């Protein structure tokens, strides 16, 4: 995803722009991983393992906001460790995931076309 110049040096501001690009898909990325119940730390690990690292300071509040928006359900569970709050998509969340997936695929196709034209 990160391009380099012919001299190997990253262009000025690339990191910030790259972060902005990723920020736009954070919600979709999180929703994809919450078809099954996950708690914050395990979700972050799962995303990172799939090449989508998200800062903890961004991810944990986001889960709360998504819950507040009515697309996630949550519950406290005590299993093999300390109490953990597990999040999972509810019906509204599943509908949102479907809609965002369609939008993402459309956008991806458009961007592929645009990038292909310029390449």
């Amino acid at each position: 995803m990160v391009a380099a110049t012919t001299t190997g040096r990253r262009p000025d501001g690339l990191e910030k722009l790259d972060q902005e690009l990723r920020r736009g898909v954070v919600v979709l990325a999180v929703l994809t991983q919450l078809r099954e119940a996950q708690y914050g730390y395990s979700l972050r690990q799962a995303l990172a393992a799939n090449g989508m690292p998200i800062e903890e300071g961004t991810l944990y509040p986001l889960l709360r906001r998504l819950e507040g928006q009515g697309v996630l359900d949550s519950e406290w569970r005590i299993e093999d460790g300390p109490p953990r709050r597990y999040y999972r998509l509810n019906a509204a969340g599943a509908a949102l995931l479907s809609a965002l997936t369609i939008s993402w695929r459309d956008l991806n196709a458009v961007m592929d076309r645009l990038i292909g034209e310029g390449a």
Partner: protein
Amino acid sequence: MDPMTLIESYVDDVARRLPRRLRADVALELRALLTEELAGRASEAGREPDEAMTLALLRGFGAPADVAARYRPGGFSIVQPQAAPGFALLCLGGLGLQWALTLPGVFLGAASANEAAVRLGSWWLTGGLGAFWWPGFLVTIAIIAGWITQRWPSHAEWAPRRVVDPDQVSRPLLSLGLAAWLVGAGIVLSLPWVAAHGPQPLARIFAFDPAFLRWKAIWLPPLWAGHFLLYAVVMRHGRWRPLTRRVGLGFTLAISLLCGWWATGPIFTAPTTDGLPRVALAIIAVGGLLGAVVGLWREQTRLGRAALHPAMM
């Protein structure tokens, strides 16, 4: 410091910035998550968590105020970013204006440096600090406006402003204005005669200075006549044209200068009668000159626009 104490302190700092109903729940979750994060880092590093590792985790997580803001649902802005420069100018401009009006008096009436210092201290506790009512008032209004906008957002569609042709004149209104001007000019021009033939003590009170009538007043009738004629021409055309606009600016400038000249010397022989009209004339002169400057500037920008859109001329 013990890692758990650090985490506890951090969680407290975040939680106290949250709405009361969220605090306990978010604190419990955040504490658990940070503890797991720290355990994960320690495991990767192959050593027990210590103070440095904990601080690095917490600092990377973000300042407590920022983290609390991420947990909060979106609030409302008191001043929108695009309005911030204008708002700041209004606040500071009003503050500066009040100080400019009250501060010179502190030094003008002081007999010595010591007295000036005492008066300055007194001013700061009254007019100086008191001027802050203005920014406070503006912020209060902005809070109310921001809350109303957030509570009842406007869904009105943008509509173009009504295009007004600034050069077009309303003939009926202009003819009324010219008639009123004639009446007013008749009254003003007959004042010397009325003052000379009026009953005492009015004749004495309103007696004109002979030098004023001989050298200064005589320029008013031709200027007014010319200006009146100009408006008659504009009424005939139904609009201002480049030439009439420029001639009009010339008349405004000339009449302003005449008023300024009048204000520099006696108009009436009685000093008590003479004061107020001269102040009024000085204000008219300044206002007229400012108007002429603005008119000239508009004429220049109009020329600039006309180069791009000739139809606007």
